[in-house]
C-alpha cells in the first residue's frame, strides 16, 4: 500500500509558474531576514558591488512563486489549486504532520529584480523510514527556475518534505 503511494508520487509534476521578480518585494524580504545591505534597496549600491541589478537574498527563490505570478504570464502548465495538496493528500488521509526537513538551492546566476522567471516543479523522490514507531515519508520536490526570455538556467530549489504519522 505504502509502496503504491510512493510510486504514484514520484514523477508527479507540480506545475509551471512564471513570476516577475519585483524590486519592492526583494527589499521587503531582505528586511524580513534581517539584512540591511543597501544592495537590496539601492541600484547604485548594487552597481558598486559589481552586480547588474538589485539581487535577491539567497533564500528568496523559495518564496518567489508566491508573488508576481500574474495571470497573463502563465502557461497552460500553470498549477490549478495547490499541487502539493494533490501530492500529499493520499498521505494526509491518515492524518499526521508535515515538516520541512531539508532545503537546497543551487544558483547558476543570482536572481535580479526585473527578472521574469519560469519555474517547473517535479517530485523527484519519495521514500519511507520507520523511526520510534512512527512512519516518516520523505517527498523531494525539485523546482528548476530559468530565464523565460533566454531559457538560461537560474536556480534550482530542492525541498525535502517529511510526513510523519
Amino acid at each position, binding site marked *: 500500500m505504502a509502496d503504491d503511494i510512493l510510486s504514484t508520487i514520484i514523477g508527479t509534476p507540480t506545475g509551471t509558474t512564471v513570476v516577475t521578480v519585483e524590486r519592492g*518585494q526583494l527589499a*521587503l*524580504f531582505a*528586511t*524580513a*531576514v*534581517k*539584512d*540591511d*545591505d*543597501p*544592495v*537590496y534597496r539601492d541600484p547604485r549600491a*548594487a552597481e558598486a*558591488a559589481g*552586480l547588474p541589478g538589485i*539581487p535577491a*537574498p*539567497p*533564500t528568496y527563490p*523559495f*518564496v518567489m512563486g*508566491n*508573488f508576481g505570478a500574474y495571470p497573463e504570464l502563465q502557461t497552460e502548465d500553470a498549477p490549478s489549486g495547490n499541487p502539493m495538496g494533490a501530492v500529499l493528500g493520499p498521505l494526509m488521509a491518515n492524518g499526521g504532520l508535515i*515538516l*520541512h*526537513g*531539508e*532545503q*537546497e*538551492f*543551487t*544558483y547558476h546566476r*543570482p536572481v535580479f529584480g526585473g527578472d521574469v522567471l519560469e519555474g517547473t516543479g517535479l517530485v523527484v523522490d519519495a521514500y519511507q523510514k520507520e523511526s520510534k514507531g512512527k512512519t516518516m515519508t520523505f517527498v523531494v520536490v525539485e523546482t528548476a527556475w530559468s530565464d523565460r526570455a533566454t531559457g538560461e538556467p537560474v536556480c534550482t530549489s*530542492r525541498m525535502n518534505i517529511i510526513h510523519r504519522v
Partner: protein
Amino acid sequence: MADAVLYYEDVAEGDEAPELTHVLTRTDLVAYAGASGDYNPMHHDEVKATAAGQPSVFGHGMFSMGLLGTAITHWVGAGNVKRFTVRFARQTWPDEELRSRIVVTGKRTEGDAHLLDLDVRLHNAAGEEKVVGEATVQVPARG
C-alpha cells in the same frame, strides 16, 4: 553589508565568518509571514499554536535559513552564493538568541572560479543547533 571585499587569497581553511546574532521576536515572524507569503498560523497565531499543543508560536524554518543566508552574504557579498543547503534540526522560539557559525572547510578552483566551501550553522545561546548545512561561495582573487 559586506564592509570589505573578501579575497580568495586572504581566506584559510578553518577561518570563521563574523557571527550574526539575533533575538527572535513574534514581530519577526509576522514580518517573515508577510514577506514570504507563508501564513501557516503556527508561526503567528498564538491561540492556534497552543491549541495544537505547541508551547507558543515558533519560527519558520525558512526564516532560520534566511538569517543564515544573511550571515553568509554579509561576509562574501550578495550574489556570490553558488550552493546553499540545510537540514532543519530544531524549532526556533520567540526570545531565543540565534547565532550563526560559518567555518571555511575547503578552498578550490573550478575553471576561473575561486570557490570556498563552508560549514554553516545556526544555534541558540545554549548551543542547540537549529539549522545545519553547507554552502559554496565564489569570491574574487587578487590575481
